């Protein structure tokens, strides 16, 4: 089994790696290679330990691994956000993203839209405030990712939004 892994860092952007898993004489062997060429090859055993939890032993070292939704994998209490992708799909998607001239501003958290600060057709600066969302007594102002024009506003003041909902499209 071979797969491409994308690790989403905190603020540092994403990076890719390749994982190969084989079986040799009943023992699992993994080979993990980062995009910078760093690589490890290890024998392992893996056991389900309750719903969403695995015990992984790697040459005598023990890892407690939990899986929550949205690709959050915690190893000994440290969380990594990762996606496992088919290598071909990854390339296609990257291309699509580069081709897009427009950008969508999505809700960073679920909540309620308090104010929309722009109008359709309005010119905006990069970093200009577009919309204010409130959740748990905290207000979050979403800013424009680039200079351009407001193409579409997909929500309105008072509306409830989920994290990731597209709110405004800038071109």
């Amino acid at each position, binding site marked *: 089994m071979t797969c491409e892994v994308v690790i989403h860092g905190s603020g540092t952007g994403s990076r890719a790696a390749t*994982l190969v898993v084989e079986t040799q004489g*009943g023992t699992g062997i993994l080979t993990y290679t980062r995009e910078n060429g760093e690589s490890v090859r290890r024998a392992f055993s893996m056991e389900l330990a309750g719903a*969403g939890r*695995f015990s992984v032993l790697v040459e005598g070292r023990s890892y407690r691994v939990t899986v929550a939704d949205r690709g959050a994998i*915690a*190893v000994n209490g440290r969380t*990594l956000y990762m996606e496992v992708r088919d290598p071909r799909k990854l390339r296609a998607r990257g291309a699509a993203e580069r081709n897009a001239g427009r950008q969508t501003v999505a809700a960073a958290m679920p909540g309620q839209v308090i104010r929309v600060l722009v109008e359709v057709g309005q010119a905006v600066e990069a970093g200009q405030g577009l919309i204010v969302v409130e959740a*748990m007594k905290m207000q979050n102002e979403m800013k424009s990712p680039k200079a351009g024009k407001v193409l579409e506003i997909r929500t309105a003041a008072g509306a409830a939004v989920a994290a990731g909902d597209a709110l405004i499209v800038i071109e």
Partner: protein
Amino acid sequence: MFGKVLVANRGEIAVRVIRALREAGVRSVAVYSEADRASLAVQMADEAVYIGPASAAESYLAIDKIVAAARAHGAEAIHPGYGFLSENAEFAEACAAAGVTFIGPPAAAIRTMGSKTAARQLAIAAGAPVVPGTETAVETFAEAKRIAASLGYPVLLKAAAGGGGKGMRRVDREADLEAALRDASSEAARAFGSGEVYVEKLVAEPRHIEIQVLGDRHGRLIHLGERECSIQRRHQKVLEECPSPLMLEHPELRERMGAAALKIASAAGYCNAGTVEFLVDRERNFYFLEMNTRLQVEHPVTELVTGLDLVQWQLKIAAGEPLTVRQGDVRPDVRPVVQWNGAAIECRIYAEDPDHQFLPSPGKITRLREPSGPGVRVDSGVYEGWNVPVEYDPLLAKLAVWAPSRELAIARMHRALQEYEIGGIRTNREFFADILEDRDFRSGRLSTAFLDGFFERRGGREMDIEMEAVAALVAAMAAKDEAQRFAPATTEAQKSAWLEAGRSSELR
């Protein structure tokens, strides 16, 4: 003692109070909004009353509904928790009018302390140090300019009716004063219904240290020592401890600040549990900041080091029982006396993302395993499967530890954070693990500006490649549901392979 008490709150503090009531043999009544029908508090209470829609204004802040619920269920008293109506003098009065005991201080004390300027005046009159500044709200720009000049810049503008950082502005030079005054006043007017603003000297990089006080209705008043609460984000505490590292070096400071807190509480005619907050500057001068006339979120650290149960004492005091614990430095001969043993730390586990400006992260908790074992206490308001509502504060649980020393408490907290498993939403759990590893934190160099420097010191973390590989393995296997294929057939042959592997790894 009361036979039945209504808990006018939600989340972990409602659970905390319900547990105390159960232990005291008192029936508990929970109130709930539409968002909280299946909350842990409702499940744990003996009785539960619906009080309105999710919006706090229509439920947890609705005085009439809560008082009506208490009467309908025959509750003799109401515990307000913290937040919501806990520092609302009108609520305390409405309880009294309905013949229900308000578990807290007299309404007059709440009212005095609710006004920052009134509280300052009271503290000054009581002989407690306050941050140099005006005693009342400033009337004109000219007055503000004159005062700021005499105090010396930087100064701080603060809302007289305020709290939580709203209507607050730091002003570094006279040129900025007029605009800041206008902004602060209009923000204060929006937030608190009063645009009154006063001027204080800015204390640079202060510690936030507070003193817990406890008084009965018969004039006995003691303090239970300090809590260091300097680590804050957006003017909200996230990690608290007792003793303060400062007190460990300067034990006399606890007595001096304790005495000042008692003067203030006494002048306010205070009873029940309350907290006097101070700023402490680099020269260990301390200044009265405000008094919180309720149970504090971080009360567990005081409970862990003193062995006193603050909620049980709140109940007893409200029921008219006398305080039987004495201040050891005043009456060392009369037992029991307040004693401080070991060290306690509390981390507030919030549904928020510390990697993205602490943005809230409400939603469904898909996985939850709480830590336990020696010296660990979890005060939680959530469970696996609970949907954390978007309408309220993001506090999920408080993780507190006790150990014989601060160093051991840090190690224990680190261990407990590692055991804690929360999935489905983002939390600040790992952010705390990083704080505990921070050099300045470990050496006790704290101030309210701690987090600014912390993020710089921490920088980006490099993940061990083997750990990352294991994460990728599980992600890939979980995705393909192939985990079973690699379950071990632990045979003697494989055992030898392990021993071999272990041996060879030792040789490397």
